[in-house]
């Protein structure tokens, strides 16, 4: 049975708009111009217990709004949400004990005190006995490779250490459902990798369900077998990254290294020539013709090396967002 159940979820906001300058200010004062923005439109999806799902979309697509509705911080304008058997908007204590929401740009740790002080408060709030709290802190500290940092004021920690400590605070009560909104934002490559290792490990150990948004595609590719892609508030894709790639990039890239240089026109019968410089050639070939084309290339041309690859997922999704081409096929 699904642990996250979303049906027809919508959320709109009324925002006032003001033109710049004195005239705009006076007009704004006398008669407010208000328009309704649909942040999330008719979203449907379910997530099974223990799944790790990537939540993708450009800025302003409605990802954070959706996570806030799933965690009960925001009431939906329409539709139904159920998380761990609860309606999030009711904010029952039993529900709050089963979830967590980590927002990369917001913190719950007390800035001027060591993380252990905040953890101590959280342990008390979530009713953990002393032994259990100490055990969980030790476990999380080990997984996140935190030690003496827990005794240093939060303000003295690096961004990566602070984010790890934030995760400790958010996971101390061992929630079943994790909503993670850009948890690796601003971290360096090593810290991002450590965070990914931790999340995968946590999911394995505790069977937690994870819904993760990230601008770093490496987070999604490393952690999430399934992705939800939303654009302009609507769900565009629900499936694996491979399926998304096939859907958005129906052609694959064939890279050739030739024994002798050849003109680009020599490849027009095989596919679209993406680039041709000397002995290196890049072709785009329809997926359904790929096997045939590769066989012909090897048979017809002096090929030293051949590589078939998908275009980078960042490029594919980036192109989609730039084009705004989200019509359902």
């Amino acid at each position, binding site marked *: 049975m699904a642990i996250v159940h979303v049906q027809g979820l919508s959320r709109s906001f009324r925002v006032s708009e003001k033109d710049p300058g004195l005239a705009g200010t006076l007009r704004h004062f006398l008669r407010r111009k208000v328009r309704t923005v649909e942040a999330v439109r008719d979203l449907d999806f379910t997530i099974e217990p223990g799944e790790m799902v990537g939540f993708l979309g450009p800025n302003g697509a409605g990802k954070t709004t959706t996570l806030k509705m799933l965690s009960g911080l925001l009431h939906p304008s329409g539709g139904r949400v159920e998380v761990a058997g609860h309606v999030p908007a009711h904010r029952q204590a039993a529900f709050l004990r089963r979830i967590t929401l980590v927002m990369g740009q917001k*913190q719950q740790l007390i800035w001027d005190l060591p993380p*252990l002080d905040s953890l*101590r408060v959280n342990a008390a709030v979530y009713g953990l006995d002393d032994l259990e709290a*100490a055990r969980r*802190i030790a476990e999380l500290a080990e997984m996140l490779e935190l030690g003496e940092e827990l005794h240093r004021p939060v303000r003295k920690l690096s961004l990566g250490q602070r984010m790890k400590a934030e995760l400790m605070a958010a996971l101390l009560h061992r929630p079943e459902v994790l909503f993670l909104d850009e948890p690796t934002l601003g971290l360096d490559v090593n810290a991002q990798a450590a965070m990914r290792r931790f999340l995968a490990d946590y999911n394995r150990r505790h069977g937690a369900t994870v819904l993760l948004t990230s601008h770093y595609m490496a987070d999604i590719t490393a952690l999430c077998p399934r992705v939800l892609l939303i654009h302009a508030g609507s769900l565009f894709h629900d499936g694996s990254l491979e399926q998304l790639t096939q859907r958005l990039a129906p052609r694959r890239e064939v890279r050739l290294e030739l024994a002798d240089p050849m003109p680009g026109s020599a490849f027009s019968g095989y596919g679209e020539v993406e680039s041709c410089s000397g002995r290196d050639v890049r072709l785009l070939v329809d997926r359904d013709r790929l096997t045939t084309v590769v066989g012909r290339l090897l048979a017809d041309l002096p090929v030293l090396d051949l590589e078939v690859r998908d275009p980078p997922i960042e490029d594919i999704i980036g192109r989609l967002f730039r084009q705004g081409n989200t019509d359902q096929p």
Partner: protein
Amino acid sequence: MSQPLPSQPRLQRRFGRHRGFPAIASALRIARALFVSQYALMLEFRAEILLWALSGLMPLLMFSLWSGAPAGAAAGISPQAFARYFLAAFVVRQFTVVWVVYAFEEDNLLGRLSPLLLQPLPLVWRYAAAHLAEQATRLPFVVGMVALFFWAVPEAAWIPSPTRLLLALLAAHLGFWLNFLLQHAITMLCFWSERASALERFLFMPYLFLSGLLAPLDLYPEAVRRFALLTPFPSMLYLPAQLASGGPIDAVAGFRTVAVWLALLIPLNLVLWRAGVRRYAAMGG
């Protein structure tokens, strides 16, 4: 590089131990954890708190103004009684200062509310713990100020009777809660307006005039005094100050007024909190 882990016994020492009835033990554990963390935080800002404590010198300034005025003698208040009243008012003021609206407003504007609202603990307890911790931090300064005052004005030195002292402590603490709940009710308006502290500043005027901060209410015209005693403001200063300084006071009527206002403010705060959280969730979190 892997860092040395805090040892489990060390963590257990920091987390302490608890026995007793589960619900009470849990509530006490939360209260203790909140207080200890907030006290640690306040000690980080002890210099700032010293300045805040010194900024509450107004009752002592009022004493210097009133000590030579004939109005006190006309009302039958001796210079010694004036001195004791204003010293008591200074002490009471130190332990009834409330700033929840400013803390909440800042948390709201800086986006710190969301993570806290996701915890199964109403925010009010965090702010209350912060206030109580701040009072504990002020305590040594206040003791020092009282000693200094007794040294400077030895004829005003006195020790209240145990009954009066206990009643004064109780009244001061209830006065704090009354002030806290009144300001917390205004704080809840932050869910509707980002600048609810403006209303709090507006309330400072009646507080200044009606609490007894400027002068003992006995010096006010009878009609004004009677009106003042119906408001919550004298309970925040005049009642505990009079009890501590040994001045004439109808303690029963005073505590009755406190009880009435608490009975009004507690449900009002609950209603405003629930409506405020609904509003927060409706407007965008």
